[in-house]
């Protein structure tokens, strides 16, 4: 099937019985990972952020379509997407900003704030991997513009236990807008 080639690897399913309790040590550890990650991205510490990425990471941001209530399954499009990256392409995005003097889309950089909430953690079939869902409210301020570009989205991650911490092994970001209200995704979600 061509769809299998065009579309990203499906995420592991969320099994509610495998929920990791809010406030448990494991949950707190994952929450801290997400908070620290947000801090790195908000402060454009992209080199550090890149170290969190698993070598086999798949990172995708589907399109959204406005569809009737009974066709809600069809509102998330994973063929053409806003982003579909692997480790090499994410690193190119990072190096474009850190290693060149002409990544104008983010130079001067946006001022961003990533508010991470509604974090839910689930065990998966793999003992060292956790499915993590979170809401992200990203505010983006550019230049002297008096408005914020807002990017509310729903993140579906797989975190993999790596030594004393975690690596991001998978991320899918479902954006709430069908027409994105910021001039580019030169930032990470």
């Amino acid at each position, binding site marked *: 099937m*061509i769809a299998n*080639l*065009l579309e990203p690897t499906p995420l592991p399913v969320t099994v509610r019985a495998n929920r990791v309790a809010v406030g448990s040590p494991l949950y707190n550890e994952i929450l801290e990972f997400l908070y620290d990650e947000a801090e790195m991205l908000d402060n454009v510490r992209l080199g550090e952020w890149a170290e969190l990425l698993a070598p086999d990471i798949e990172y995708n*941001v589907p*399109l959204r*379509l*406005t*569809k*009737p209530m009974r*066709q809600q399954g069809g509102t998330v*499009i994973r*063929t*053409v*997407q*806003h*982003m*579909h*990256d692997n480790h*090499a*392409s994410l690193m*190119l*995005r990072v*190096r*474009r900003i850190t*290693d*060149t*003097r*002409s*990544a*104008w*889309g*983010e130079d001067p950089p946006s001022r961003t704030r990533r508010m991470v909430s509604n974090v839910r953690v689930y065990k998966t079939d793999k003992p060292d991997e956790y499915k993590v869902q979170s809401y992200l409210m990203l505010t983006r301020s550019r*230049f002297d513009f008096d408005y914020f570009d807002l990017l509310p989205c729903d993140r579906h991650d797989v975190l993999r236990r790596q030594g004393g911490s975690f690596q991001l092994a998978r991320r899918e970001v479902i954006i709430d807008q*069908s*027409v*994105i*209200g*910021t*001039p*580019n*995704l*030169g930032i990470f979600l």
Partner: protein
Amino acid sequence: MLTPAQPVLSDGTRISDLINLETREVQLRALSDKEVYELEMERIFARTWIFLAHETEIPDAGDFVQRDMGSDSVLVTRDKSGEVHVVLNVCTHRGMKVSTLDSGNTQAHLCIYHGWAFRPNGDFIGAPVEKECMHGKLMSKQQLSLKKARVALYGGLVFATWNIEGPSFDEFLGDAKWYFDTLWCRTTRGMEVLGPPQRFMIRANWKAAAEQGASDGFHTLTLHRWLGEIGPYAKKPGTEGGGADLTPEMYGVEVWTDHGHTMRCIDLDRKIRRITGQDPSSLTPAQKLAVLPPPGLTPEMIPDVVSRLTPEQIRIMSSNPPQVGNFWPNGLFEFIYLPTADGKVVGAMALHAYVPMGPDKFMFMNWILAEKDTPPEQKAAMLRISCQLLGTSGMVEQDDSDTWPHQTIVAKGAVSKHITMKYQAMYETGKPEGWPGPGHVGSGFTKDDTNWSFWQYWHELMIA
């Protein structure tokens, strides 16, 4: 006041005062003025041919997509017989949008307000409780149909115009058709979209993007310099150009036409030498196409291409293929060869529309395409690299999208609005020796003639 015959802005400025045809300058005011924008909606977007969709977005009977044709919402539909229609998405009853969906499939578009229903071709089917005749008796059902635009299909692309008696689509393409056929009509089975278009909003005037889309080459050197620093065009030390220098990429041939359609044609021989190591002068045109197939093609697909085009067209395809260009007024296409780290070449085929949403805002739409016959693995590779370099998150195009808003803001300044955009780098070469194609042609390092032809036709239609 705006007068239809001789457009004059409310402060007495004529449209012709905004553009200096002798010195090839355009006042920045043209980029953001509300009255200019309103004139454009009437004189350009309601009169000329506008690109709206690709046929493969609506493959089945009843399929539709909602699109914007200038400032008007339209439905692009396919009826039972397979014919494609473009109808105004405005209910003839009380002006509700007939559809609020991005896309779907139906044989009867039902307005949710009072229940008036319309066929995919816009014909009025009826209103609820037929015997009570909600639609009255003053107008026939035919008169109550959705307003229908004139449609042209070209290589799978759907264009429409409200100018029912105006020039044909072929007349509109003019001299560009000879070249565009080598892109859009090159295979028997044709192209397909790989998914719905990306859409994102840019707070800039549509022309800031569209005049750049008219084959601007110069901006590449600075705005896209990263491509040479670490990106796909980065050279190893000591090789041609060296380091971040993108200058060698800027040589080729540029074509511009009287209706503002333009293209930048690259020097393929140079690419063949660099990428394949072969001597292009020892190869026939068909062999060259097989050695370095254009984006979306494979060596196996070349005989079909050769059989569909004239030897002269094949010669241009194999020596100076159009790589980027525009459908006037607001469409841009890219057929790019992208060298990858492992020495291979991945093609990308993308089509943009810069859809006006007011004088200071436009929607960027990006369709990613392949030939239907492109092998699935290649389609997937083309799709990936397109998403990474073009459109919403594109490492190349995110730099463009950050430029246009600033031009638009500046264009409002009481002093700044009189500053001009200049298009004074002119070709002095004429057509290369033996060039078989029509239109205006310049050879060598990129120039401004293509962008200027965008403004010339803009002026022509705005004062027509």
